[in-house]
């Protein structure tokens, strides 16, 4: 009987997961990869222009870092003097151009584009954690087939993409993900690069690739306007100077390519498609003398490197490539090279057309290219556009299935949860749902892929119709205020402008709810409740002034989330802020406990100590981190916070029994009832574990989350002022508000990846979890504390079925938001902003739903077991609840 609620929670959670997965299947675009390897027909054979190539990829090398700036204003302007001098002094020998990236501007996606010449589709964007080997044709593979030896040093993403491609003795990959470290990778790359260029070793390779990350890491860590970026750029300048010198010594004809894989935005991050992020630089230098020509074009696309490099090395262009040759690189053979590329693209389009009828038809409809350079350029551009458009083609069937499942799950969530079917039926449906999830994610067999959704859909429909037939489908009474507030939040998805300014909208809605409730409380002479609600609103306004603006907001928003000032100033600010939190948060919780009528007991004292220890650990951690000092001590601090938090959870189950007796009477001797005891105990459990969540937030995030805990505690005091539905909506708005004030935005580039290294120095299984904790900390805390913020009138929730209650509220609202955002994604799928605004918002909503689901199951189960067993099952309350 105790497991009823958990079963139900699991069942709804699996339904959410199925809906989200189905929707993603149709929405996140995919491209079919052709495995053909290009072979060069006799007529296309071209003598190589160069024998050797040295490629230096400087991660996040933006065009304006390199190009000459007349009015140099920023620290990064005019640092790469060597390139600028060579371009102006010796124009035919080298050229510099804009090198436009196809978004998403993540390194993994860029490397794929730079080597295969194909366009990225959305599906791969998330796999930045572990790059997987490239299966399709690329110029590294072609070089290997032609017997060229490739040397590599730098970012280990290359190693993941091209295993077994590099010469074993000329392969030196380095860990790339740790953005705290500006120099280790670059030192290693420098040593290997110049070692291999030495007289003794330069004949053992034909292609040398070096990928330096210092510039990118400086941007991520310190932002663009920082001396560290300047230092790294100066270092790169030195490298290029040395490289040019070394290459000029060599007897063979050597091509040097220096390029960025993407740019960086004003905050130093990348991933999106803003002008600054896609605007990389490409510089080619020839040791052969003046062989490069001029052009009228302002920029080239990154995929254009693929046919260019293949042409210069006399290799076949990779089969899937859609790029055009770069005009400057072929001053003499440009037309010839264009013809060759047009033929290659025709071959590719013809074969792809066999798989996809629409593309085949569209490509066949194109007129044959006029045999001039303009004609070929136009033809290649047209074909590229056809593919780019078609790869933005959604699969509507799974999208609609996903929307249907999400809608049904929302309906099932929303009705007051009560048992209406046999447990065995529920169990069966749960198994079907889990099976569908697995089949959608892991097994790709078409028969399962096609039938699993239908089975799942019919199960949901059956369940719902059963509810209707038994007329137990009762939606909760519609109340004006929560409906209005939540509708406001849902309607926000109808416009990209609203999504951009969601942080302010959420604040406005939250304040409306709180102030109306406060006025109502005042009207019913509950001044204490009114004051609590007003303080909650005040704190909400204070936290809302911690802002990290997204780029679209920039003219109406000032970012103050990333701190300015010197390292020492920042450290002092962090230390002071976190010390205040350490002192005040346990104090605040104590005051609330006293206010609720608990006299000081063993557990309250223990909780205070535990909170102090955890917060102290967090303070030390972030202070050390700001000083960039003692990495081991940081990790030890983090682990001790985790251990203390988990230890508290274990100890809690043990002492809950004997504290219960202490808590049942207040100081005046009155008995407070098991409801109250259960609530107090539960709040103590959550507060003791809150350190685990606070740990993953960055310093200002810790302050924001601590303020949120205070707000939640105040809401516990004022719990009788709102109906459960209003409280749920207020909580949902509150966690969105704190999502923003912990330095997040609904964009990919605002994910705080560096928190992955809190508990270890390498990527481990815990790292994704830490990033998740960091992003959704506010949601997790709200979901955990929700069972305690249900008013006394709806008695029995904490003791009887916390997981049930908390499930059918916070995460059901999250699921409805996901549904709204998914349906708006469907509606706006041809919108200009779909990938920039609507899709990230949907993904965030989907993740929030899954996280809140997981938390309510994880927290609900032990809670129910312990409290339920401790106090027995309150029969009266539950039977009331069931009818």
């Amino acid at each position, binding site marked *: 009987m105790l497991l009823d609620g958990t079963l139900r929670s699991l069942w709804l959670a699996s339904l959410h997961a199925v809906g989200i997965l189905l929707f993603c299947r149709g929405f996140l675009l995919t491209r079919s990869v052709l495995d053909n390897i290009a072979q060069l027909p006799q007529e296309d054979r071209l003598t190589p222009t160069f024998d050797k190539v040295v490629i230096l990829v400087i991660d996040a090398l933006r065009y304006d870092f390199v190009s000459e700036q007349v009015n140099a204003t920023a620290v990064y302007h005019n640092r790469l003097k060597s390139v600028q001098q060579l371009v102006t002094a010796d124009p035919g020998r080298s050229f510099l151009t804009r090198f436009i990236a196809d978004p998403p501007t993540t390194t993994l996606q860029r490397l794929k584009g730079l080597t295969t010449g194909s366009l990225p589709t959305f599906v791969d964007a998330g796999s930045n954690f572990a790059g997987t080997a490239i299966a399709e044709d690329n110029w590294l593979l072609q070089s290997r087939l032609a017997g060229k030896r490739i040397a590599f040093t730098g970012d280990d993403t290359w190693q993941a993409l091209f295993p077994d491609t590099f010469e074993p003795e000329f392969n030196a990959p380095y860990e790339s993900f740790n953005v705290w470290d500006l120099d280790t990778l670059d030192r290693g790359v420098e040593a290997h690069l110049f070692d291999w260029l030495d007289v003794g070793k330069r004949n053992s390779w034909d292609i040398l690739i070096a990928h330096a990350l210092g510039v990118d890491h400086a941007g991520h860590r310190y932002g663009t306007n920082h001396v560290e970026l300047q230092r790294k750029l100066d270092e790169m300048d030195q490298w290029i100077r040395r490289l040019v010198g070394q290459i000029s010594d060599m007897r063979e004809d050597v091509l040097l390519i220096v390029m960025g894989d993407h740019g960086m935005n004003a905050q130093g991050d990348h991933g999106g498609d803003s002008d600054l992020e896609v605007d990389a630089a490409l510089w080619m230098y020839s040791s052969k003398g003046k062989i490069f020509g001029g052009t009228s074009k302002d920029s080239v696309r990154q995929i254009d490197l693929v046919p260019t490099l293949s042409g210069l090395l006399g290799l076949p262009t990779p089969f899937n490539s859609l790029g055009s040759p770069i005009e400057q690189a072929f001053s003499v053979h440009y037309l010839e090279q264009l013809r060759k590329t047009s033929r290659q693209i025709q071959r590719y389009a013809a074969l792809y057309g066999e798989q996809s009828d629409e593309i085949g038809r569209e490509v066949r409809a194109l007129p044959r290219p006029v045999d001039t350079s303009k004609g070929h350029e136009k033809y290649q551009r047209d074909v590229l556009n056809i593919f780019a458009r078609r790869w933005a083609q959604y699969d509507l069937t799974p999208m609609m299935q996903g929307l249907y499942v999400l809608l049904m799950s929302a309906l099932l969530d929303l009705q007051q949860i009560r048992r209406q079917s046999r447990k065995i039926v529920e169990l069966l449906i749960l198994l079907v749902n889990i099976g569908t999830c697995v089949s959608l994610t892991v097994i790709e067999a078409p028969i399962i892929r096609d039938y699993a959704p239908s089975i799942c859909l019919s199960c949901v429909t059956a369940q719902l119709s059963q509810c209707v037939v038994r007329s137990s489908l009762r939606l909760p009474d519609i109340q004006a205020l929560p409906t209005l507030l939540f509708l406001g939040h849902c309607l926000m998805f109808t416009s990209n402008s609203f999504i951009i300014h969601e942080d302010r*909208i959420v604040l*406005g809605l939250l*304040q*409306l709810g709180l*102030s109306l409730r406060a006025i109502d409380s005042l*009207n019913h002479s509950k001044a204490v409740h009114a004051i609590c609600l007003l303080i909650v609103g005040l704190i909400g*306004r204070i936290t809302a*002034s911690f802002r990290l603006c997204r780029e679209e907001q920039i003219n109406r928003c000032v970012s103050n989330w990333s701190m300015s000032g010197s390292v020492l100033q920042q450290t002092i600010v962090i230390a002071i802020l976190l010390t205040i939190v350490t002192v005040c948060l346990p104090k605040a919780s104590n005051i609330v406990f006293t206010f609720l009528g608990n006299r000081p007991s063993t557990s309250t004292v223990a909780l205070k100590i535990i909170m102090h220890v955890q917060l102290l650990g967090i303070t030390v951690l972030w202070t050390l981190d700001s000083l960039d000092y003692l990495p081991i001590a940081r990790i030890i601090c983090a682990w001790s916070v985790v251990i203390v938090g988990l230890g508290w959870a274990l100890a809690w189950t043990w002492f809950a029994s004997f504290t219960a007796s202490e808590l049942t009477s207040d100081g005046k001797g009155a008995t407070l009832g098991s409801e109250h005891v259960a609530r107090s105990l539960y709040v103590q459990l959550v507060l003791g574990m809150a350190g685990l969540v606070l740990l993953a937030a960055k310093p200002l995030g810790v302050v924001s989350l601590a303020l949120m805990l205070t707000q939640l505690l105040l809401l516990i005091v004022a719990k009788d002022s709102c109906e459960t539905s209003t409280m749920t909506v207020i909580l949902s708005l509150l966690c969105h508000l704190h999502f923003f004030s912990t330095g997040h935005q609904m964009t990919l580039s605002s994910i705080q990846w560096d928190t992955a290294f809190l508990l270890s120095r390498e990527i481990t299984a815990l790292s994704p979890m830490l990033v998740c904790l960091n992003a959704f900390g506010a949601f997790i805390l709200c979901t955990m504390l929700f069972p305690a913020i249900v008013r006394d009138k709806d008695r029995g929730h904490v003791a009887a079925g916390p997981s049930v209650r908390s499930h059918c509220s916070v995460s059901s609202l999250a699921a409805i938001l996901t549904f709204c955002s998914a349906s708006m994604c469907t509606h706006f799928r041809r919108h200009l902003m779909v990938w920039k605004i609507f899709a990230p918002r949907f993904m965030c909503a989907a993740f929030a739903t899954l996280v809140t689901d997981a938390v309510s199951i994880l927290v609900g189960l032990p809670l129910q077991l312990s409290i339920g067993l401790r106090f027995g099952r309150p029969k009266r309350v539950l039977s009331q609840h069931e009818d």
Partner: protein
Amino acid sequence: MVQRLRWLEAISGTVPIVLTYAYFPALIAEPVATIAKLTPFVLLSTVIPLFASGAPPANILYSVAVSSTLGTALLYTVAVLFGAPVTVLFSETAGLSLHCALTSLLPALTYTRPPTLDRLQRPHALTEWADGSYGYIIGTLAGAYAGCIPIPLDWDRPWQRWPVTVYTGACIGLALGTISEALYDLYTIRSKPKTAKPSSKAKTN
């Protein structure tokens, strides 16, 4: 008599929106100066029905003083709490708060004394206080809240600047609020003989 007063309120309640409509280009160009210019007329339009209602002039003067100082400060705080900027655009927000205080708090303050702390101990103290000027309070504040909606849209129109939409929203809300209150009263007075029983029941409750 009451009905006639309601109609007077409704007519004078439409004055601010008519003025806003007439001065809209100026309001966009110079919000603060225009709000300052319009405020005397707004005040006049709110005060005329108050005089007509027979409230003592001293009482009205007192209410004007309170709502233009304390009331403005209160609404300024509310605006900031709801997300208005704190460090910049002070005079814009202050002008808006003054306007809203005059059109929402002033009538209620004149008709009934604001509840003291003692009165707040009794239930429904606030409802009793606001009774009779719901149209003003709810109309203005809800209108101002709804006026925030167009601000984030990316239409790049000059009228999207702070606080033009909120000011306009408050004016529209005031007009709608006072008119609908007049209509509501008309309806309830007309249907009074028919629903005599329920009203007597309400009294006993």
